[in-house]
């Protein structure tokens, strides 16, 4: 057995990356003024307007999370993001999250490389489990394979994002041999891993040199401080440069802090 001690570690620099503010949505069906639920199509059109409005008020990032249900019909986030991209200039646009386990990493790369082209380099991808598991039975995957699916597909995606011909094999997808996957990225595609609370996922993000998006479901944000230390140390251990850490959290904005607390 080994006893662990806290090794000396450089504190992650707070000034390494600029602080950015983003909005994430799951594209919930909302109601009209009479309380009647809107159609899926209207919900989607509204979401495009939502994204365009976000740029107007100076939001840095707009993210859409993949879902496959009647009350959350945003199953094709990249299409909606492309519509927003065509009407905006600066706001960064990404998935929050892409449920990679039940998707094909080649197709995810192709769609987001396309979005990156349409948006002139504003696309990002956050890979994750997602907060529901509807995509597994829908696409014929077994929940029991969740770990393997995510690990293998993340591995393939990291190679695709690096560019160049890809050679890869695994048990969750057909092999690629010296494969050129198109469209080629014109500019880098920032990739994040969404992590709920799993230390293993933090280390996985670091292993691939991806950025870390911490999903706060509850409890004080401070409890994530050890996770950001773990991420920084793991990145260094894997020989990667520092990467940004994001916090995804429910919240409410109002004119004053007190009002925000009262209304929330």
């Amino acid at each position, binding site marked *: *057995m*080994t006893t662990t001690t806290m090794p000396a570690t450089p504190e992650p620099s707070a000034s390494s990356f600029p602080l950015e503010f983003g909005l994430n949505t799951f594209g919930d069906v909302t109601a009209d003024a009479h309380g009647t639920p809107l159609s899926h199509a209207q919900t989607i059109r509204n979401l495009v307007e939502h994204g365009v409005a976000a740029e107007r008020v100076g939001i840095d990032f707009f993210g859409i999370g993949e879902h496959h249900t009647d009350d959350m019909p945003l199953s094709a986030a990249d299409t909606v993001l492309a519509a927003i991209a065509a009407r905006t200039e600066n706001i960064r646009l990404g998935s929050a999250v892409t449920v990679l386990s039940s998707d094909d990493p080649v197709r995810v790369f192709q769609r987001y490389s396309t979005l990156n082209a349409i948006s002139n380099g504003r696309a990002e991808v956050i890979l994750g489990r997602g907060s529901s*598991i509807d995509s597994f039975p829908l696409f014929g995957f077994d929940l029991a394979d969740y770990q393997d699916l995510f690990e293998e597909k993340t591995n393939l995606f990291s190679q695709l994002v690096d560019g160049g011909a890809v050679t890869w094999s695994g048990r969750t997808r057909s092999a690629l041999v010296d494969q050129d996957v198109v469209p080629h990225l014109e500019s880098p595609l920032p990739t994040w891993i969404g992590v709920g609370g799993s230390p293993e996922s933090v*280390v996985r993000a670091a292993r691939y040199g991806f950025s870390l998006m911490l999903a706060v479901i509850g*409890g004080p944000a401070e409890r994530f401080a050890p996770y950001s230390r773990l991420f920084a140390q793991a990145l260094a251990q894997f020989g990667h440069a520092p990467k940004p850490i994001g916090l995804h959290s429910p919240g409410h904005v109002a004119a004053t802090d007190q009002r925000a607390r009262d209304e929330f």
Partner: protein
Amino acid sequence: MMRTSLAPRPRIAILGAGHVGSVLARMMVAAGYEVSVAASGDPARIELIASVLMPGVKTAWAKDAVASADIVVLAIPLHRFAALDHGMLAGKLVIDTMNYWAPTDGVQPMFEGGELTSSETVQRQLADSTVVKAFNHIGYHEMEADRSARGSAGRRALGVAADQAEAAELVATVVDAVGYDVIPVPRLRDGAAFEPGGPVFGARLTASQFRAAVATRAAA
């Protein structure tokens, strides 16, 4: 926390270095216990995680951690339970923190059927172990923040379910030392009240509220 007994403290082995395991390890180290943590393979693979998230724990192969422990905590996802080496837990007091969520675990035939509570199924599989249900009904994201010292006003309470009173008592001392009042229920089967959908799952309750909630459920 003050030690109220001169008996040596139980050595604790935690199986699982994920969300739940890492938080439990941290809290038990803070409460003064000797804690070892094991994942499913080589302890070297959890070295970094342990050093940053659970300073003070020993990492070990599961078999070794279990062999030198007085209490073993199952903090693995339930869908990994079937593949666990059940034999290595013979003769041990095992705390079951697991919940069966078919949407997350996938359908687990062992736990289907509705006749037995999930911990009773675990006990049936670990015939030579003494299974105690605890810590399953509080979210890992709240566990640390909701602790308080014994005697604090409004101290949150957690339940302990076991068939053997001695085992229940020992686990209760750990739960209390970690930072929660304890409401024991007389049988492992009564742990049904702690399960998802039950009256105390994820609920922030004081001891009297918790007692009332499980009593209501038992009477229903």
